[in-house]
């Protein structure tokens, strides 16, 4: 008894190291560290947009139409005299809202459906998997486009549309994880102790699916943002006057010759966010991979 108490601090130590190792691995690659910094900056910009942005993003100023980048407007102004930099800063809000929103919807629904398919197996598994095969046969952008257009343009419609298009990826991932986890001894043990099916699913199987799920969520957030931007670009996503980066690129098209910055700047913003998310996803995959534990 006494010995056990004494060994406690030593037991606790590896846990702290584990977390340190996680942070160290995550930040050891320069690109991943860059991603973390970029995302923090973007979160900051989204939270404090009104304080950072030099102008009101929607304020039209017809005296200052299509200005070249300069000291007054760092990235110029669009055809309605709106400040491009301010619109990009406020655009972080829509982008993050859509990114986070779709990931939450798709990941939670996908996790539940994937758990059910993987755990129960049999005809439930067959039906769910054939349906995901069906959805996956249609390019996600095309599917999101159809649903977004039918639901009517707007943040809510876009979020539902993109979530639906990305849902099969989550279902497959979780289902595959469940299939590989559910034959383990600890699941058998829980079952023999009379734990309910739901209890086994959520307390014993789900925690073991979390690492790949987190990686997938980070990567998919980038994809969701790209799809939203494409929809907005096509005019079937988030409608003006909201400052969506995709529709800003489209608006800038007409002035590509005289003011390329109108199209290029919001596109760079999209790339920065998606790049940062992908890098963090890569880093998380390395940091959470138990096979690499100790080697990194």
């Amino acid at each position, binding site marked *: 008894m006494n010995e056990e108490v004494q060994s406690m601090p030593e037991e606790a130590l590896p846990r702290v190291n584990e977390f340190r190792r996680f942070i160290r691995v995550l930040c050891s690659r320069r*690109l991943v560290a860059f991603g973390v910094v970029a995302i923090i900056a973007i979160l900051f910009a989204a939270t404090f947009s009104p304080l950072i942005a030099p102008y009101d993003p929607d304020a039209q100023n017809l005296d200052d139409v299509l200005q070249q980048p300069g000291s007054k407007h760092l990235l110029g102004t669009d055809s309605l005299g709106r400040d491009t930099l301010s619109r990009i800063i406020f655009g972080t809000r829509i982008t993050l809202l859509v990114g986070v929103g779709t990931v939450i919807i798709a990941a939670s629904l996908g996790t539940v459906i994937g758990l059910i398919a993987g755990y129960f197996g049999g005809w439930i598994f067959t039906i769910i998997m*054939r349906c995901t095969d069906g959805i996956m046969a249609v390019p996600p*952008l095309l599917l999101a*486009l*159809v649903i977004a257009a039918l639901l009517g343009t707007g943040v809510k419609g876009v979020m539902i549309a993109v979530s639906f298009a990305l849902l099969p990826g989550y279902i497959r991932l979780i289902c595959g994880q469940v299939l590989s986890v559910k034959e383990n001894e600890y699941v058998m043990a829980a079952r023999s102790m009379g734990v309910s099916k739901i209890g086994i699913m959520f307390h014993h199987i789900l925690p073991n699916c979390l690492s790949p799920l987190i990686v997938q969520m980070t990567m998919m957030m980038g994809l969701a943002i790209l799809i939203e931007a494409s929809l907005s670009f096509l005019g*079937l996503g988030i409608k003006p006057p909201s400052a969506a980066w995709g529709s800003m690129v489209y608006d800038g098209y007409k002035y590509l010759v005289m003011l390329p910055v109108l199209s*290029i700047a919001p596109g760079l913003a*999209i*790339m920065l966010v998606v*790049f940062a998310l992908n890098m963090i996803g890569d880093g998380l995959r390395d940091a959470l991979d138990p096979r690499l534990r100790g080697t990194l």
Partner: protein
Amino acid sequence: MTTYIVRRMLHAVLVVLIVSLLVFLLMRLLPGDPILMYVTSGDLQSTSKEQIEHLKHQLGMDRSLPVQYLEWLKNAVQGDLGKSILYRYDVLQEIGNRLPITLYLGLWSFAIGCLIGPLLGVASAVRRGKWLDGLVTVLANLGITAPPFWLGAIMIYVLSLHLGLLPVYGYTSPLKDLGVNLKQSIMPILVLATFPVASAARQTRSSVIEVMRQDYIRTAWAKGLSERVIILRHVLKNALMPVVTLQGMLLRNIIGGSVVVETVFAIPGMGKLVVDGMISQDYPVVQGVILIVAVTVVISNLLIDILYGWLDPRIQYE
């Protein structure tokens, strides 16, 4: 192998049926009414309720959903995808005119992705940690993040407007004028190929690195085999398996990407058709396009599955 192929084919048919049901339900259950679009688009502002009912009856839209679905499916199997509600053209015929354009651009991009992507990936993995690896890794990561419509804008700005090398947009059939066709197709193909090249390079790089860690590769080195033999005979054969699976996804995404690219470069392909159809809520057009796209994707996946089963015989017994 035959049982495996037959099983995969049955599966493919089932997937196509599910897609057809999915698309049909999506178009009918979600809000939006093409009849109203049709009525308000013309000078039919004063159309009476009876006329609308008559129109609905004519188009068969007053019947129950299962009946409509079975009718549509029956006709689709016989090669009749219906007529556009708005413009009255035959949907299958229109798709027949446009599909070759989308496939022409798509297959070029796919071929570039299949060749250049893995090549870059292998080169980068073999020279791991050197400048080539760093360059490929950064470029590949940028390539999978660049929005295609934005890449298109940059290319138009640099290559067309600034340097005046290529036409800004348009499409001419290669049968009509190959020179003009090639000039017009370079930018759309490059834009479409960026994602496949980048993601194939990433995937190849990581799977080659994974395989190089295996014991049998160490054995091969220990046997004193040359680097060339080890890479070509031992590493590549195993490392390319996940890359082959990736190709099915890439082809699907190229077709998806054509929606954007065809809009940017004003190319009259399937992507443009579906965007226009969606804006005017022309059910038969959108349903038809998605069905044909899904069939294309499913057939290509079927071929990839068969190739995979042939490359890795273990798959057949799963």
